[in-house]
């Protein structure tokens, strides 16, 4: 029935209106999340550290992000003397926009993707590489030694972690046979053992693959323990040292938008996207329930991963830089190559 309503709606609604709705929706979603993930982070950090976290502004500090945003917006945007003004101003936008654009292809629920592209996965990784450049430009143009060191670190870190991440993604493309994210999720329908992370009959190393993806995601988004870009006890604030006001604010939001994107992608690729973990029990009701609960399941999985990201940040110390590169080149890349070869061999031998 809901399918019918949806069909009639899509027939009745002009395409531009749908796109505008999605655009506004994604912008609002990212904005709200960036703001409230900061709250989650601070509250979570507080709980991990046996203190209450923000409590003053609003109930349980819930208005804190708004106060923070008001503070950041009212601050002067200082452009340091001798910096490359244009690049300095563009860098935060370059960091933010790829994350927003990539979210367009994420299927939040059945038939709930702004743009159901056949090359969705490719688009995300194409745009994902841009934010490396954003941090590099930001660091380079601020004419600050700490920022430049940070920029150099970010480039080598992201190059090192892009490779195992893409190897994992190639494995996933091979297993699913498609780059369309909606299609990938549809293939994982049914109970939780149909999710890609548990598809051990295709590749017994699938959980390891997921771990590699998650680790690379942490490194790509510059989150602890891989937060080389803004290692505050070493590089003050890294590439963001010279940014003030909303220039810094946009970088900050973009960091959370990227975490959100990374976790959403991990959910789609490995954790069955909007699929319910007990989908097999629902029988014929499945499709109806999915539309109602799909977004719910998606959010449960995604926010669990987001919480893990926060959890990891407040648990571990920062890695050393060569330790980070060693991890990538000596462990993650060989292991991801092994999973790639193993799953291709398994597919050829048992699943042709």
């Amino acid at each position, binding site marked *: 029935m809901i399918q019918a309503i949806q069909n009639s709606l899509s027939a009745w609604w002009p395409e531009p209106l749908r796109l505008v709705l999605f655009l506004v929706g994604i912008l609002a979603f990212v904005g709200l999340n960036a703001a409230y993930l900061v709250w989650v982070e601070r509250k979570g950090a507080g709980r991990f550290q046996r*203190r209450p976290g923000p409590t003053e502004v609003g109930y349980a500090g819930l208005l804190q992000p708004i106060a923070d945003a008001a503070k950041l917006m009212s601050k002067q945007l200082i452009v340091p003397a001798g910096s490359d003004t244009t690049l300095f101003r563009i860098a935060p936008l370059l960091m933010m926009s790829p994350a927003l654009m990539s979210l367009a292809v994420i299927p939040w629920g059945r038939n709930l993707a702004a743009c159901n592209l056949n090359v969705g996965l490719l688009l995300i990784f194409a745009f994902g590489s841009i934010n490396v450049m954003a941090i590099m430009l930001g660091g380079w143009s601020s004419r600050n030694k700490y920022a430049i060191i940070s920029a150099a670190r970010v480039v080598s870190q992201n190059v090192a972690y892009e490779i195992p991440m893409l190897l994992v993604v190639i494995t996933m493309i091979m297993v699913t046979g498609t780059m369309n994210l909606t299609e990938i999720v549809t293939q994982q329908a049914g109970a939780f053992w149909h999710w890609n992370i548990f598809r051990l009959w295709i590749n017994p190393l699938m959980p390891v693959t997921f771990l590699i993806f998650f680790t690379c995601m942490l490194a790509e988004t510059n989150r602890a323990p891989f937060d080389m870009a803004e290692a505050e006890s070493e590089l003050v604030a890294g590439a963001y040292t010279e940014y003030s006001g909303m220039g810094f604010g946009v970088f900050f939001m973009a960091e959370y938008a990227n975490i959100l994107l990374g976790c959403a992608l991990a959910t789609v690729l490995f954790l069955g996207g909007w699929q319910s973990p007990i989908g097999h029990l629902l029988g014929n009701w499945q499709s109806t329930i999915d539309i109602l609960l799909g977004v719910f399941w998606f959010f449960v999985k995604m926010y669990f991963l987001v919480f893990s990201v926060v959890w990891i940040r407040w648990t571990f110390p920062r890695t050393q830089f060569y330790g980070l590169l060693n991890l990538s080149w000596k462990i993650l890349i060989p292991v991801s190559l092994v999973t790639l070869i193993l799953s291709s061999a398994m597919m050829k031998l048992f699943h042709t």
Partner: protein
Amino acid sequence: MISKEAIISNGAPSETFVLNLGPQHPATHGVLRVKMTMDGEYIVRAEPVCGYIHRMQEKMGENRTYAQFLPNTSRIDYLSAMTYTHGFVGAVERALKLQVPPRAEYIRVITSELNRISSHLVWWGAFLLDLGGFTPLLYAFDDREKILDLLEGITGSRLTYSYFRIGGIYNDVDDSFIKGTRAFVTQMRPRLKMYRSLVTDNIILRKRLINIGPISKEMCRKYGATGPVIRGSGVPYDVRRVEPYSAYSEFDFLIPTFEETDSMARYMVRMEEMAQSLRIIEQALDKLPAGPVMAEKVPRVLKLPAGDYCYAVEAARGRFAVRIVSDGKEIPYRVKLRTPSLSNLSLFEEASAGMLLPDALALMGSLDLVIPDIDR
């Protein structure tokens, strides 16, 4: 890890720049400035610049009476205020040949060791902060708070105690302090175990500290490094053992030393020292004698006989020695303070040469610098 030489020989250009670390920088924990000549992320030369928080403590000693200078001693190294006061009152007592009652000596030991634990806890939290781990700091402060509450109960102060007086201590401890200290000792032991399993055994931490920043015995001797720094280089030098003062000769405790000489060794020395301090406190509480806490016949006006007096104590950061030169007046002719942090910092330039910036900062953190202690 690829060596710098290998990178340069592979054709990468070698070009140095000066990175000005501090006086305001998150890793220096105060107003220390380090002028770093860098080659990429490698340190060619790191030159510490001191003096940003110089407060003329020694000069102040020269124009105050002995009793008036006493509160200053808590403010040199504010994290081990108790032991620093001990050094000063010890020197004056040695000059006056005052016999401090045993109860006072025992209480001095208990409070000094509590102070040492609280100082090491601050170091531990701040060091982990340097390494990018935020949470341990709050755990450390949780325990430190208990020590501060105990000390506040008897001294009325939480940081700069001025509890020791020339000839004894300011006031006797009460039952609630003794009960509270016993409770703290029993609480702290499992906490130390927890710190070990949560933090010390963490692979990231171990990778960041093991084989990083070696400081040889020779280098320690050359610069006069003491405390956990020299004990982390395998030299069992501890003032409490080599020149026993106060009541320390009556207790059974170990001097933890580690032969590895790296940052991890210095880390382990401090973690072990906390356990040993707990042992000392427990023994002192068991054996706490009754009696007065102030020497009889402490003169109202202190005039030290002309001469040169020195008294050394083992502070949390190493050997703190006070040298008083008296010409028989009410005001000392000279008060020389030998602070451990200055000596420990001075080896940084040699030890950090050729290191990567984050490793050098881990090394600096493992030296446990308190900047007012350097500049005095």
